[in-house]
């Protein structure tokens, strides 16, 4: 087991006068796939930003590592960036991976290593394509590739499958379950409830507050899902 347990206690976030998150208390078991579902604007991405320490929140977040703190990796939501930037897929991964400035040719060993990483997500053939010229799904694959290198102990994903085709989604599910088998803790925001039912160990439904929290087979009943997404709320 390499991944940590995550515990949040009474985590709240207010932006301006809007209460984005309210008293979130949840536990992510080490080495599990923990899915977070909920409507848009329900605070899923904000929760992740809080966990990453990128937003000021009230309450506590604890990461309980089995030994020395391991490596955290993050797959952000589909990249919002300047699509005209002449940055190829390899440029992007190389910039993340190495200190050798991007304007110099990457070392042969680095290039080979990055190509192997891209192969895992089926993108090796598009290594020299500009990031801006990729489809949404291809971009997601590249973002997954960067998260897998170096190997993570805690992986946080923000709707990684939003733009993926069926083959891509199946590949990502395999990658996530393989990581779980290695003991990696995975916190996964997902809108595809079928995917959550298939591979998540635990699901938390979030709409400003925790609406329910439990095993997907019990938690994601049609009634609860309807209530969650119709903003009527539900008793935990």
């Amino acid at each position, binding site marked *: 087991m390499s991944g940590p347990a995550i515990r949040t206690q009474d985590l709240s976030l207010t932006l301006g006068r809007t209460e984005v998150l309210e008293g979130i208390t949840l536990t992510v078991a080490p080495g599990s796939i923990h899915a977070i579902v909920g409507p848009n604007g329900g605070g899923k991405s904000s929760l992740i*930003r809080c966990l*990453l320490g*990128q937003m000021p929140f009230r309450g506590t977040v604890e990461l309980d590592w089995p030994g020395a703190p391991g490596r*955290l*990796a*993050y797959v*952000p939501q589909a*990249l919002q*960036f*300047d699509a*005209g*930037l*002449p*940055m*190829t897929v*390899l*440029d*992007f991964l*190389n*910039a*993340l991976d*190495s*200190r*050798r*400035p*991007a*304007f*110099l*040719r990457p070392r042969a060993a680095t290039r080979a290593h990055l190509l192997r990483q891209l192969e895992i997500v089926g993108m090796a053939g*598009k290594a*020299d*394509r*500009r990031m*801006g*010229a990729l489809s949404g799904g291809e971009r997601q694959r590249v973002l997954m590739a*960067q998260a897998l290198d170096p190997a993570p102990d805690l992986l946080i994903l923000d709707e990684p499958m939003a733009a993926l085709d069926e083959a891509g989604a199946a590949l990502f599910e395999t990658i996530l379950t393989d990581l779980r088998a290695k003991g990696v803790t995975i916190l996964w925001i997902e809108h595809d409830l079928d995917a959550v039912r298939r591979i998540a160990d635990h699901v938390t439904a979030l709409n400003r507050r925790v609406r329910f929290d439990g095993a997907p087979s019990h938690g994601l009943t049609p009634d609860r899902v309807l209530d969650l997404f119709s903003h009527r709320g539900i008793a935990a």
Partner: protein
Amino acid sequence: MTFEAFRQWVQSLAETGWLPSALGWGFAVNALLAGLIVGPMLGSLGTLVVVRRHAFFAEAVGHAALTGVAIGILAGEPYTGPYGALFGYCLLFAIGLEYLRGRTGLSADTLIGVFLSTSLALGASVLLILAGRINVHILENVLFGSILTVNGTDLAVLAVVAVVVTALTGWLYNRFMLASFHPALALVRGVPVRTLDYLFVMLVTVVTVASLKIVGAVLVGALLVIPAAAARTVARSLRGFWWLSVGIATFSTLAGILLPMQYDLPVPSGAAIILVAGSCFLICTALRALVPALKGDAA
């Protein structure tokens, strides 16, 4: 080889016809050396300026330099190189601007607009006070650059700045790129995004001040932007982007210095440099329009 020996060597090459005859003058060699440092340095940093959307900031710092010069002369520094006030005022301008960005709820361009005009007003006021003391026409050199005024001190300042800036941008280039490409991901990867924001405006500032004599306050920002903008329109990778930007900036600087001397044109060096860079930009945009592959969608 000492600098003096180097200058004489270049002058002798010019006399024998191996180099343009304009380099027969000592000041021309100074200017050429300055150009050889300024061109690559601005071209390289310019790629980050364009990616980080700091073009307007680069322009504003150039204009702040005018006020810096005025304050320096008022404080008794030599009017040929009031570097104390220049670095001091411009760094204050840049750091103040960066500090307020994100704290005022204003967009960056609005905030820069406020800083720029206030600073210019201050500069104009100080200049009026100075008008009785010195010939303010000297300031034309500051505004538009003049190869005649580049002296040993300027070259020394330029060389030190170039070494520091090249070392820092080389070491941190990828991190600067990532921090602007995706700040949240960069933070997770351990990139100190906010510290780099400050460091970057400071780098642009010292580069601007050091290049002032050769390119001029009004135009130095342009040399940070135009070569990189031109390169961006046709480049298909970061490597191509950087090398092309450095190439265009160096070529523009050298051509802008040598052409007016060689052909006896009454054009200030800064203006000539930017005119050459602007022409390169036009050529690049035309190339992009004519060659579909350069639009980058096909790989």
